[in-house]
């Protein structure tokens, strides 16, 4: 797969904004810049404040559209959530190294926590649906599950409040022995647990990390993550890493 070279573009038109739950939204913008599963964009929907753009993973890509699934966490994402059709954003991207899809084979588990499900629609679309099981954990009401089911993949849901699927964490319904390769994205303690389970069975696991960023392109070194190969830049060396190489409890 060829990775498109990143660009900085202002005045990118918002095609749609959907509110999926209280604090989760799906934003689609008109751009041909594309991107691979697991890559992200630095997104900006304001002039001066906040100062920095926000790194948001690619949820889906079409020829002239990129969509983001995001959760409102603070000032930046609150401003993103206020965008309406016809509004504009500035984008830098697509950025980073995404999932190594060529290494995903056999029975594939995609284990996600909360908004960590965001990059998985884009990824699942590139995989044979019959081989993929998505194990998705949510605090409460699930989101972005129906479109995965539409792809024909198996989706298993866990919710912390028991409002849907199995009550509890997704890691409790993830049996690492049942899969040959694993992909994970979500809160760090959850990914650390998935990485540990995979280490026990020897299943290769790719983890997509989240970090506060400033430049997003590998220049400033503020998003570094400790790995067995030393500090790596989440933005440029990742965001997807071999879970066995990440030092999870640094």
């Amino acid at each position: 797969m060829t990775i498109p070279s990143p660009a900085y573009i202002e005045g990118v038109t918002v095609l749609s904004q959907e509110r999926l739950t209280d604090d989760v939204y799906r934003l689609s913008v008109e751009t041909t810049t594309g991107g691979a599963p697991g890559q992200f964009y630095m997104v900006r929907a304001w002039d001066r404040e906040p100062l920095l753009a926000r790194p948001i993973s690619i949820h889906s890509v079409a020829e002239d559209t990129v969509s983001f699934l995001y959760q409102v966490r603070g000032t930046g994402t609150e401003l993103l959530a206020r965008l309406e059709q016809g509004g504009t954003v500035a984008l830098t991207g697509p950025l980073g190294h995404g999932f190594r899809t060529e290494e995903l084979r056999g029975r594939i588990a995609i284990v996600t926590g909360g908004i960590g499900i965001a990059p998985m629609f884009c990824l699942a679309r590139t995989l044979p649906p019959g081989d993929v099981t998505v194990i998705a954990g949510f605090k409460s009401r699930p989101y972005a599950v129906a479109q995965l089911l539409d792809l024909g993949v198996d989706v298993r849901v866990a919710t912390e409040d028991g409002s849907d699927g199995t009550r509890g964490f997704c890691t409790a319904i993830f049996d690492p022995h049942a899969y040959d390769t694993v992909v994970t994205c979500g809160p760090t303690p959850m990914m650390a647990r998935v990485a540990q389970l995979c280490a026990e069975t020897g299943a290769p696991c790719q983890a997509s990390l989240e970090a506060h960023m400033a430049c997003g392109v590998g220049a400033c070194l503020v998003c570094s993550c400790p790995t067995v190969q030393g500090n790596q830049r989440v933005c440029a060396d990742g965001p997807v890493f071999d879970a066995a190489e990440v030092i999870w409890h640094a």
Partner: protein
Amino acid sequence: MLDTTLCGVTLKNPVIAASGTFGFGAEYGGYFDVGKLGGICTKGLTLRPREGNPGLRVWETPAGMMNSVGLQNPGIPTFLERELPRMRTLGTAIIANVGGGDLEEYVEGVRLLSNAEGVDIVELNISCPNVHEGGMAFGVNSDVAAGVVTAVRCVCSKPLMVKLSPNAENITAMAIACEQAGADAVSLVNTFKALAVDINARKAVFDNVTAGLSGPCIKPIALRMVWEVARAIHIPVVGIGGIATWQDALEFIMAGATAVQVGTATFVRPTAMLDIVGGLERYCANEHLTSLATVRNILGTVPKL
């Protein structure tokens, strides 16, 4: 029109990428022709590789950001072998920024960098607030700073620019001390030592407790410091601190700066420096200036009230 001579080195224009915000010049190559810049300051280099600080390294503030990178770098020998040859193809002046944990590390670092072909200017970093030993420890007291500058001057075969900390006890005395110790230029300011508290966790946001503040919020203070220093010394001053637009750059030039460095603004808008160069060109054309020297250092002295 924007040609600028900085301690004997000719720059295409007075807009330089600030250390630590532009890597070694490769990361932004896909967004614009970095050869159009006046120069690039490398990520802060030390003789030995450094992993930098653990924990969270960035925190946003109103009109600014705090960082606690802590001089993560591959070490000077690796820089010379892997990064410098590629940097030399970029077509812009190369300013090697060097830090150190102790005097010997500074001296050996400066010796290696200044002897390297392709390095145009050495920028001595005595102003990093994010490392315990070294860095800013040398940049607070003028006598201590003069000792470092004197020591590295002896081994520095290229123009030597000293990057000053706004956390110096007395920024003007500091600049004078550096000039007297043999500096060819000073650049100021590095980041302001600052604090953020996580009220939910009831602890400092950063493992190192304090971190360096940059961005538009520091600009008026940085500008005042540049103005004070430019008045007090005879060597060139390079202005740094929250510059995001060509108007900001011009303010620093009018306050006495020969050139400017831009850092945080590049994170906000990858092409910020190109826009600043373009804006300065248009300004000169509109004002019928053949050189920015006409408007440099035009604010006068401290008024006696």
